[in-house]
C-alpha cells in the first residue's frame, strides 16, 4: 500500500507518542491529551480509526513485547509500536513541517505569533 498522506494532526501526535516506545490504546490517548493540554481529545472511535489506518499503512504494528505487565488485566492489552517505515515516514513528515515553520518564521508578521 502506498504511503498514507497527509497525516492529520491527531495521527502525528499518536505516532510521536509511539516514537517513545510501545503503548496500548488508552496510554496513547492519555499521553496525547496531556501533551496538547487537552486540545486534542481522542475519542475511542477517532483513536482506533487512526490506529487502523496506521496499521493498514504499515506505519505501526502490534507488538509481542507486552511491557511491564504487573497484573493480569494489563497483560491482555494490545500494544502498538512504530515500524521502521513508520519512523521514517514520521521523520519525513516532521521535516516537512519544520520547513513549513521555518518559512513561516521568515515572515515578520507571523514571527511574533510563533515565538
Amino acid at each position, binding site marked *: 500500500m502506498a504511503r498514507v498522506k497527509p497525516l492529520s494532526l491527531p495521527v502525528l501526535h499518536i505516532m510521536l507518542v509511539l516514537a517513545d516506545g510501545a503503548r*496500548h*490504546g488508552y496510554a496513547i*490517548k492519555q499521553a496525547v491529551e496531556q501533551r496538547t493540554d487537552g486540545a486534542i481529545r481522542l*475519542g*475511542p472511535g477517532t483513536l482506533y*480509526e487512526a490506529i487502523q489506518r496506521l496499521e493498514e499503512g504499515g506505519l505501526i504494528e502490534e507488538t509481542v513485547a507486552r511491557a511491564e505487565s504487573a497484573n493480569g488485566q494489563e497483560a491482555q492489552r494490545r500494544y502498538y509500536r512504530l515500524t521502521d517505515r513508520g519512523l521514517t515516514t514520521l521523520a519525513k513528515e516532521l521535516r516537512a513541517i519544520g520547513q513549513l515553520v521555518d518559512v513561516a518564521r521568515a515572515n515578520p508578521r507571523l514571527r511574533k505569533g510563533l515565538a
Partner: protein
Amino acid sequence: MTWLARALLRLYPAAFRDRYASEMVELVASERDAPRHQGFAGTVRFVGYLLGDIVATALRLRCRQVARALTRAGGGSAPQLPQPRKRTEMDTLFQDLRYALRQFVRRPGFTAIAVLSLGLAIGGNSLIYGMLDGFVFHPFPYPQPDRLVAIGVAFPKLSSETTYGEALSPAEYLDIRTNRSFAHVGSFDLGNRNISGGDVPERVFTALLLDDLFPVIGMAPALGRGFTPEELGPNGPPVAIISHRLWQTRFGRDPAILNRAIRISGRAASIVGVMPPGLVLIGTDLWIPWGGDPLTVPRNVRQFNVLARLAVEASLAQANAELGAIARRVEQSEKPKFAEYENWQLTATPWAAALLKDVRPAAFILLGAVGLVLLIACANLANLFLARSSTRQRELAVRLALGAARWRVMRLVLTESVLLAIGGAAVGLAIAWFGLKSAGVLIPGQFQMLGLEAGVNLRVLWWSLSLALVCGLLVGVLPALQATRTDPHESLKADARTGGSRGGRHLRHALVVAELALSVVLLLGAGLLMRSFLNIQRVDRGFDPRGVLTMRLTLPRERYPGDAAGAFFDRLSERLAALPGVRAVSAASQFPPSGSLGTQFKLERAQADGQTLPTALITVATPSYFETLRVPLRAGRILSATDRLDTTPVAMINQAFATRYLAGTDPIGKRLSLGSPDQARPWTTIVGVVADYRNNGVTQPARPEIYIPVRQQTAWNQLFMLIRTDGSPGGLLPSARQTVSSLDPEQPVYLIQTLEEALATSSFQQRISALLVSIFAGVALVLAAIGIYGVMSYAVSARTQEMGVRLAIGAQRRDVIWLVLGQVLRLSAIGLTIGIGVVVVAGRALEGLLFGVRPADPATIATVTFVLGAVALVAAWAPASRASKVDPIQALRYE
C-alpha cells in the same frame, strides 16, 4: 455505560469491530471514570461525546468501505477476491437503508407527500396524546398516582350524581377512615384566605386539612416539616405550610422562612414548612389545619374532600367493597335522623379520573378522531405504495428470479415504509411540540388554575415512535406481500403497461373505500359537534351576558361581623354604580352559567313526604341582580333595599319553581322555610316570580330557584360583584379595583372575568371538540381526495389502451369521463354507507357532547353526503379528463 458503547459499536464494519471492539469498550470504561464525566451533567456530556465520536467515525469507515467496493467493481485496481467474512444483520440493514434512501431521493415528490401526510397524522396524534397525558393520564407528580383514590359519595334521595368535591362531613370521614384497604386516609376543604404581613394583601387558594394528607399523596415538605397531630387537632396552634410558588413570589425564596409569622385572614400563624416545586394539591398555595372538632359538626354539613392511598396488598375493588359495607353500617345507625342515608353510596376512584371526569369524554373522542386520521393516512400511503410496487414489480421479480429470498425482498419494502414513517414521526413531533406550546390558548382557566401542563415528554415520544413503527408496518405489509406473491416468471413475461393484477385493483379499491368510510365518520362527527356548539350558542339563555364584568370579594369575618359584610357590599355597589358608563351593579353569591349552590326547603302546609325535602338552587343577591342580568319579572315585586334583617324575611322564586311546587296557585304570599329539617328557620314569604334562565349550565333547562336578599342574612361574606356597562367590561377593571380599595385597601378582588368569558368556559368541551374534530375531518377529506386522485390516475394510466380502443370504436369522450367518474361515485357510495352506519350504530359515544342534535341527524348526513360526493368528483376529474383525451392512434400503437 459500556452497554451503550457496545450497542454503538455495531455501527462499525464487522472487520473493524472484530479487531478493535474489546479494546474500545475497555477504553470507554476507563474514560467513564474520569472526573469530568461524573454527575448528571457529566453523564450527558459523556453520552454526547460517545455518540458524536462513534457515529462520525463509523460513518467515515462505512463510506470508505463503499468507496473501496466501488473502485473494485469499476475494475480500477487489480481484481481481488472479496474478504471472506460473515455478513451481519447490521450490514444487511445498512444495505437496505441505503437502498431505501436512494429510492426516496429518486422520487422526492412521493417522499415529501408520504412524510408530510404521515407527519400531519402522527403530529395530530402526538398532540392529542400529549394533552391527554398532561391532563388525564399523568396530571400529578405523586408517586404511584393510580394508588391515590378520591372518595365519591352519592345520595340517591337528593341527587343521582356521584360527587367528589366538598361532599363529605367530618363524621363521614371518620367512618371512611375505618376502611382497612387504605394505607392512609386524609381529608381537606378548599377555600381562599387573605394573607398579609407584606406590602400588598394577597388572596391565596388554600387547603384546610382535617387530617395529615402528606402520607396520602406521598409527598413531604421540601423545607421544614409537616403538621403534628397536635396541630391538626381541634384548636391546635396556628401553623401554615406554603407552596414553593408562594415562597418564591411572596417571600423571595427566603431560606429563613421557617417559623416566620404571617397573617392569614387577620390571624397570626407561623410557617413550618415549604412544599417542593410543582403542583401539590390542585393548585393550592397555602396549607393550614382546619382546626375544628370533627365530633361537633353535624353529619349533614358536608364540605370535605377525602383522599386515600390504597394499602399495598389491597385492590380498588376490595376498597370499594369495604366502603359499601361502611355505607350500609352508617345507613342502619343514622337513617332515622338523616333520611338521605337511604341507599347512599361511597366509591373510591383514582383521583385523576375523579377530578377530570368532566373532560374525559371529550378527551377520548378527540383521541379516537385523530386515530381515524392516522388510519386514513396509512390507507393512503399503503395505496401509494401499492401503486408504486406494481410499477416496480419487474425489478422485484428480477430480484426474486435471481434467487433473493422472499422475506429478504419483503424486508426491503418494509424498510422503506418504516423509514418513511420515522421521518413522519419527526415531522409529527415537531408539530406536537409547537402545538402543545400554543395549546394554552385552548385550555380553559379551570385547568390553568389546577396548574396542569402538557408538553412533549418521554411518554409522548414513545407514543409517537410506536405509532410510526406500527404505521410503517401497516403501510408496508400489504405492498410487500403483494410484491412478493407474484410469480416472477409471470411478472417478467407480462407487459409493464398492463399494470396491476385484478387482486391488486381490488385491494386498492378496498383501501379507498376504507379511507372514504373513515372520512365520513369524521365528517359526521365534526358536523354533529359543530351543530351542538351552534345550538349552545343559539340557546335562549334567559339573560343577557354582554357587557358584564364579574369579580369576587371575600370579607374577613373578624372585621366584617354580622350585617357589616352586607352593608359593605351595598356601599360598594353604590360607588361602582356611580362610575361613568355603568348601567347596573349587583352583588350575588353565584351567577349563570355556573350557579350550582342548592338548598333544601319546606313549603308551609306541604304534605310531609317522609323527611326528605325538595331542593332548589339558592342565590343570595342584591335587588339589582335581575336588572344587571336583564331577567324580567313575571309576578309580584323585586327584592327591595328595605328588606333588612329586622323586616319580614322575603324571597323570590323563578317560574320553574312555581310550576313545579306551586302549580295552580298564586305563588305570591306563600311561605317557605330554607335549610335542612333539623335547623329551625323563620318562615320566608315569596314576594315575586322572575322568568326562568339557564343558571346551572347553558345546556341544562332551568331548575327551581330561590333568591334571598343580601341584607337579610349574615352567612355570606363571599360574593361576586356583577357590573353591567355600556362600554367594554374589561376596560372598567382599573376603576373598579380603585373603587374597592377606596373602601377597604386590604381587600383583593379575584376570579375576574366577563360574563361572556364565563359562558365560553362553560361550553369549552363542545368548542374545543368541534374545532379540533373539524380540523381533523378537513385533513381526512384532503387525504381521502389525494387517495382517490392517486388510485384513479393509476387506473387510468393502466387502462390507456382500453380507453384508446373504446374511443377508436366510437365511444364519446363524455362516456369515457363517466366511466371513470361512475367508478369513483360507486366507491364513494359504499364508503358513505359504511361510514354513516358506523356513526348511527356507535354514535352513543358522542351523545355526552351533543346538544340538541341526535347522531342520526338527517341534515348533517345530507350535508356530508354532498360534501363527500363533491370532493370525490373533483379529485377524480383530472384523471377522468385525461382518460378522455387519450389519442386512440397513440394508445393503439403500443399493441
